[in-house]
């Protein structure tokens, strides 16, 4: 079996340069997604009629469809929307000028937002309803019960989920290679086709992803430990 081992090393070094971009593409959508998740949660907890249905549909759609479709729909769809509704608001800029990267971040933020919404939701379900009742019973308003009793604990319970989602999202960025974003997989494809050394390039990519994932898992483990310590004083 002929494997060009030296090239794996060459490719590895080449791909390392893509790690910062890939990490950026992991972090930004998670941050934006978290804001979206808080919005969705707020809507759900206050049962704001129309928006709650929209929020539910959003979470359902973005969790039930492949992420690659999210990227394509945003990438191709937003320019169409800009043209269609630009007339109404007088916006007429050429959507072609927007770099792909922005669309990818936007799409992945929506993807992350849906999954993070569910993580927050399961965190909320983990809070004892009795504590919320006690809050109401001493005269706290709905808003106060949510802000002071439910959410702090919900986010705490959801933290392990968040960390897992973060690690998983690092892998999701690989789909951006399909729209020619030079993250790890994207660069691997370039290295592979430029040198006709396909297996070696992809093995190098696998090694990088694997290594960084192991790092994330170690961080997750530390976080779990820290949380258990804190839990000793809380739960």
């Amino acid at each position: 079996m002929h494997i060009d081992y030296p090239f794996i090393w060459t490719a590895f070094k080449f791909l390392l340069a893509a790690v910062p971009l890939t990490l950026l593409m992991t972090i930004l959508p998670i941050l934006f997604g978290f804001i979206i998740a808080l919005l969705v949660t707020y809507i759900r907890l206050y049962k704001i009629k129309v928006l709650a249905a929209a929020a539910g549909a959003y979470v359902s759609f973005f969790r039930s469809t492949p992420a690659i479709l999210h990227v394509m729909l945003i990438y191709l769809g937003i320019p169409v929307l800009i043209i269609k509704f630009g007339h109404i608001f007088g916006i007429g800029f050429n959507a072609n000028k927007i770099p792909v990267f922005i669309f990818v971040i936007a799409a992945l933020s929506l993807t992350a937002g849906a999954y993070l919404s569910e993580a927050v939701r399961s965190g909320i379900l983990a809070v004892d309803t009795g504590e919320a009742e006690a809050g109401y019973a001493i005269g706290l308003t709905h808003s106060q019960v949510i802000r002071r009793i439910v959410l702090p604990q919900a986010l705490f319970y959801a933290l392990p989920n968040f960390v897992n989602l973060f690690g998983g999202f690092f892998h999701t960025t690989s789909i951006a290679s399909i729209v020619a974003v030079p993250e790890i997989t994207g660069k691997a494809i370039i290295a592979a086709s430029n040198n006709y050394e396909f297996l070696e390039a992809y093995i190098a990519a696998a090694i990088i992803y694997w290594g960084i994932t192991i790092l994330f898992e170690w961080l997750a483990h530390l976080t779990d430990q820290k949380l258990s310590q804190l839990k000793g004083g809380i739960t």
Partner: protein
Amino acid sequence: MITIHNVHKAFGRHQVLKGIHLTVQKGEVVTILGPSGSGKTTLLRCINYLERPDEGQVEFGGKTIDYKHPSKKDILFLRRHTAMVFQQYNLFSHKNVLGNVTEGLTVARKIPKREAEEIAMAQLERVGLADKAGHYPNQLSGGQKQRVGIARALAINPDVILFDEPTAALDPELVGEVLEVLLEIAETGVTMIVVTHEMEFARRVSDHVIFMDQGIIVEEGSPHQIFHQSREERTKKFLHRVSPAYLYQQV
């Protein structure tokens, strides 16, 4: 000084409360007894609107509130002048003991922090837990947790405190410390409505006893009347069944 009229409540097709009338005077200790499923806990939770009655009114603090369409202000009024002690304690697990007791003061009543802490510490002294102010609920025993719950209720100085089977979840040896606190509170003239299975407590401490079964008040009266002179067959049967002699009569 709190009167509820004609309270009905159904869960689905099951009618749990079938028209309850109840009056409690200031400073009275009222105990509600009855078999499980009689609706006594539901009744208690209807008073502060943790359950939503289908029908009924409450006269309280000079206001009359219709349970069918209460305004937000009415509900908050109810809850800011009553307090509840829960069977499962329901302490806020992310706050320490002091934080649990001050929450109702600082947040619901906008009392400044220092004043709230003074009040809280005074109530914690009263229930014998002043030294645990910095502890978290998961570091306390069941009896201690319940006493914190009582302190939390006392701190907001309510017109009436609602007790939902306060000792039912406790290990037997911890029941005593909680009952002691309840006795002391009753003696200081706090208005209390207590749902309980502790018959001796009911007999000795109540001013008024209510026996409920299947959603209606079957009989009510002074402790002596209920425990020794009950007129209704159902009351007698219930009391007989919860007395120790019943279990061992065949032996």
